[in-house]
């Protein structure tokens, strides 16, 4: 099947999203080099270009990050060919160092920086408005409001870039980038360029004396850009002789058109927005009595018009915010508040159970988080289920002493008042007070599991530990007069399966460790029931934030979780930093050998390039060792036991360490045999409450597995305390 963007029929239509439209525009303009780092909603620009790379003799690459991609595109442009770099809005922050000074050096072949903003943060960490990056960097900016504009602007942006000798920013927003529309295709320009680099030009060397000269050159280019903005075909006037004029940009402008009777107003659609097309706006404003501005995110157009001394009806008058995205609903409400259109009918909200985002069934990240959560655990009792039957006490005394005697049990059934029943046992407190209280040093606590051990030789039965325990979990053995406490039966407590009400379960201790997070699928580990991830700032931040906490003196063990692609993108400098500056952080690299969240683009660990050619696989364990980390463990997260052991070993390791949790993204491999729940399931809920796989749900009597959703990873078999889950028989 040929790609939709490769069709050589000028004037014909194709259903394209904004990203594909940008790619088509670039191909029409004879782009030669394309580079990007995956990021929603910009990913499909490079994907579409890579797909047609052979056919149109384009070099396309997934670079390791956005500044690398920008520099690759800049180098190609310096050699005289046309180049495009694409990224999500926050990628431009990463690329900023290059972009800011590229404005000074200027470029040779046309260079387009395509950037997709994400109003309403559909999948981002902020909603910055990159029109202000244009102001900041002094690079011209085109703002697309539809896929058709995206195509037309992309093609035109190369021309503009070459006229001005400047990179041109082409801005899309999520609704444009991921919205699809009928788009009219243009002609392939087939421009011929010989790649050559002018070795003798001083404008590429930004030492101060050259840079200050180039700064002046940039000012001159901006004056020229202003003229082009005023003449641009992307600033479109529709004069309907109305007293009310509406100025807008982006998709918000089209929402306004769809909720209003367009003939009753005059319209100005701004597409070339930086430098601000003052003359166009002045002319339009002078013909109407009232000006209304409709623009998503910040009030860029509004502020510019105010600077021209025109009265504007803007965000505050319309009751619209600089936060979040526009919808036809809130735009209608805004215009209805001015009496310019009908109000919407009120829709009654429905009371429905939510379907929150979750890690996919079979996701190795969930398995790793489960192991991390379970590193230190205790026997927990669900008060709602406990009926005070005391069977746990009998189970424990029989297991430990081969007698049925509650006085010799390590778990105690407690009744408070008439109805409140529970069972208490050791909570494996961090820095356990019982250990500190013992005058004989008879109590010790395992660094790895938190389990308390009593040395019977040393214990004198003084009671001090019993006094120290706020849970009442320690008692004296009635015959030996020695302290007895739960040892969790080497991680397999015998009381749990014998509880007739399924009130007991092994529960991981939250809040006994710090887990910094990063950007990727695994950020979903912040959500219940996983609840592991405690931070998310920007690409690569987790490792260095963890280091900062350690240097501040926090007592808890600090884990920094980062995905393989994010590690290559921005994690490596942070890892080198903790190796050299010695921070006691355990960095967990979640290696699924792909950029999963954006739709499976290759990483340097995948062995394939964007153009599907073979590449040398860069092994993360080699990279970590090369960056100076001595303790590097590789685990399979589906093996919960081995993973837990590897995590425990880092608990008393004092220094920077790395655990690589390695499993391919299950969406890329064939599904395994689904699991099923056996009759003996007693609906204890551990698989749903502690593990939380979306393929498992609780019916009234037991857990059920939806075989169409199950990926057959089998981790739930390990999680189930009652061996009630098994491979489904055909």
């Amino acid at each position, binding site marked *: 099947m040929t790609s939709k963007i490769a069709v050589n029929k000028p004037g014909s239509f194709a259903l394209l999203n904004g990203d594909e439209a940008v790619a088509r525009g670039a191909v029409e303009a004879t782009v030669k080099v394309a580079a990007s780092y995956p990021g929603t909603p910009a990913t499909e620009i490079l994907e579409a270009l890579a797909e047609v790379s052979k056919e149109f003799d384009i070099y396309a690459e997934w670079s390791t990050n956005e500044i690398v991609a920008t520099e690759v595109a800049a180098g190609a442009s310096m050699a005289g060919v046309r180049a495009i770099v694409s990224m999500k809005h926050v990628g431009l922050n990463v690329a900023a160092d290059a972009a800011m000074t590229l404005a000074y050096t200027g470029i040779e072949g046309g260079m387009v920086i395509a950037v997709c903003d994400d109003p309403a943060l559909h*999948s981002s960490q902020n909603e910055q408005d990159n029109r202000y990056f244009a102001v900041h960097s002094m690079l011209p900016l085109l703002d697309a409001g539809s896929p058709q504009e995206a195509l037309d602007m992309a093609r035109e942006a190369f021309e503009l870039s070459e006229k001005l000798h400047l990179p041109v920013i082409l801005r899309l927003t999520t*609704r444009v980038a991921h919205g699809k529309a009928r788009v009219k295709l243009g002609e392939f320009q087939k421009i011929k360029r010989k790649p050559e680099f002018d070795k003798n030009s001083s404008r590429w060397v930004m030492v101060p004396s050259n840079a200050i000269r180039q700064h002046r050159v940039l000012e001159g280019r901006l004056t020229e850009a202003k003229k082009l903005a005023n003449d641009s075909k992307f600033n479109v006037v529709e004069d309907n002789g109305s007293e009310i004029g509406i100025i807008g940009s982006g998709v918000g402008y089209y929402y306004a*058109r769809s909720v209003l009777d367009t003939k009753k107003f005059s319209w100005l659609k701004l597409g070339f927005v930086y430098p601000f097309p003052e003359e166009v706006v002045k002319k339009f404003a002078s013909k109407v009595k009232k000006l209304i501005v409709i623009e998503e995110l910040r009030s860029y157009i509004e502020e510019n018009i105010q600077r021209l001394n025109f009265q504007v009806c803007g965000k505050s008058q319309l009751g619209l915010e600089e936060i979040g995205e526009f919808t036809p609903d809130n735009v209608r409400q805004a215009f209805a508040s001015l009496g310019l259109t009908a109000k919407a009918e009120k829709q009654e909200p429905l009371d429905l159970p939510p379907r929150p985002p979750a890690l996919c069934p079979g996701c190795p990240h969930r398995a790793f988080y489960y192991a991390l959560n379970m590193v230190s655990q205790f026997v927990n009792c669900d008060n709602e289920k406990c009926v005070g039957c005391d069977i746990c006490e009998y189970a424990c005394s029989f297991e430990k002493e081969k007698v049925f005697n509650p006085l010799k049990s390590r778990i105690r059934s407690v009744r408070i008042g008439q109805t409140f029943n529970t069972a208490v046992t050791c909570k494996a407190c961090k820095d356990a007070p019982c250990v500190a209280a013992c005058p004989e040093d008879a109590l010790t606590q395992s660094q790895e599991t938190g389990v308390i051990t009593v040395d019977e030789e040393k214990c004198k039965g003084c009671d001090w530990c019993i006094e120290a325990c706020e849970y009442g979990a320690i008692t004296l053995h009635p015959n030996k007069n020695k302290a007895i406490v739960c040892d969790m039966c080497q991680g397999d407590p015998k009381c749990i399966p014998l509880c007739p009400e399924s009130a007991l379960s092994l529960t991981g201790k939250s809040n006994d460790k710090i887990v910094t997070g990063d950007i990727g699928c695994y950020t979903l580990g912040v959500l219940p029931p996983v609840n592991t991830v405690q931070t998310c700032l920007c690409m690569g931040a987790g490792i260095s934030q963890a280091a900062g906490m350690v240097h501040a003196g926090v007592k808890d063990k600090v884990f920094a979780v980062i995905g393989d692609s994010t590690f290559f993108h921005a994690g490596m400098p942070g890892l080198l930093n903790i190796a050299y500056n010695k921070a006691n952080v355990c960095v967990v690299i979640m290696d699924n050998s792909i950029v999963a969240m954006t739709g499976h683009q290759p990483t340097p660990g995948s062995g394939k390039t964007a153009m599907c050619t073979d590449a040398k696989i860069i092994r993360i364990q080699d990279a970590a060792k090369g960056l100076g980390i001595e303790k590097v463990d590789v685990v399979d997260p589906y093996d919960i036991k081995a993973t837990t052991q590897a995590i425990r070993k880092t608990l008393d390791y004092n220094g920077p360490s790395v655990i690589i949790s390695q499993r391919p993204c299950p969406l890329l491999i064939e599904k395994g045999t689904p699991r099923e729940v056996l009759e003996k399931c007693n609906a204890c809920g551990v698989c*749903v409450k502690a593990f939380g796989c979306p393929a498992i749900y609780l019916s009234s009597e037991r857990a059920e597995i939806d075989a169409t959703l199950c990926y057959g990873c089998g981790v739930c078999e390990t999680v189930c305390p009652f061996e009630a889950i098994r491979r489904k028989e055909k």
Partner: protein
Amino acid sequence: MKLDIVFSGVGGQGVVVLSDIYCEAAMLDGFDVAKAEVHGMAQRGGSIVAFARIGDKVESPLIEAGKADVLVGFEILETARALPMLKKNGTVIVNMKYIQPNCMISGVKPKKTEELIAMLRAKAKVHEVDGIGIAEKLGNTLVVNTILLGALSALPEIPVKKESFQQAIASRLKEKYVNLNLKAFQLGRESVLMS
């Protein structure tokens, strides 16, 4: 002429692909088209909604609440969730598949299939489609979405020709799956025409 359709389901069910094929078919009949999707961060298992607007001229891709003409639901709970998008007395096509969300985490009482269907019936004309049942007859449960497309094509309010749907299916899918999907399309169509 304008017709606004909301497609809803759970990530991984093929909501996006199906709404694409519908738009491609509409373009073959000369309609202007715009569409958009709303989905969360998860690759699989979250709520997903796609809007598809066709007409002589379509200005923007999103549909206002209470203005959609037709709602096509791939899953019962998500169909109910998208119901506020539908106009009064609009039409619903619902695939009779219920994927239970994890109510233990949210602490919300789960809803039964009958309760959800009653919600739909209170507002709209409802066509229940046994997508998986029909797909199993064809020996491939992956064609459920094409069955729903067939059901959609049979609604009297759809101005797109049957042949255009078939052509759009044929041009979008790999050749070896085309015949199977055309059969699925036909069975889906009949499930509405015969009801």
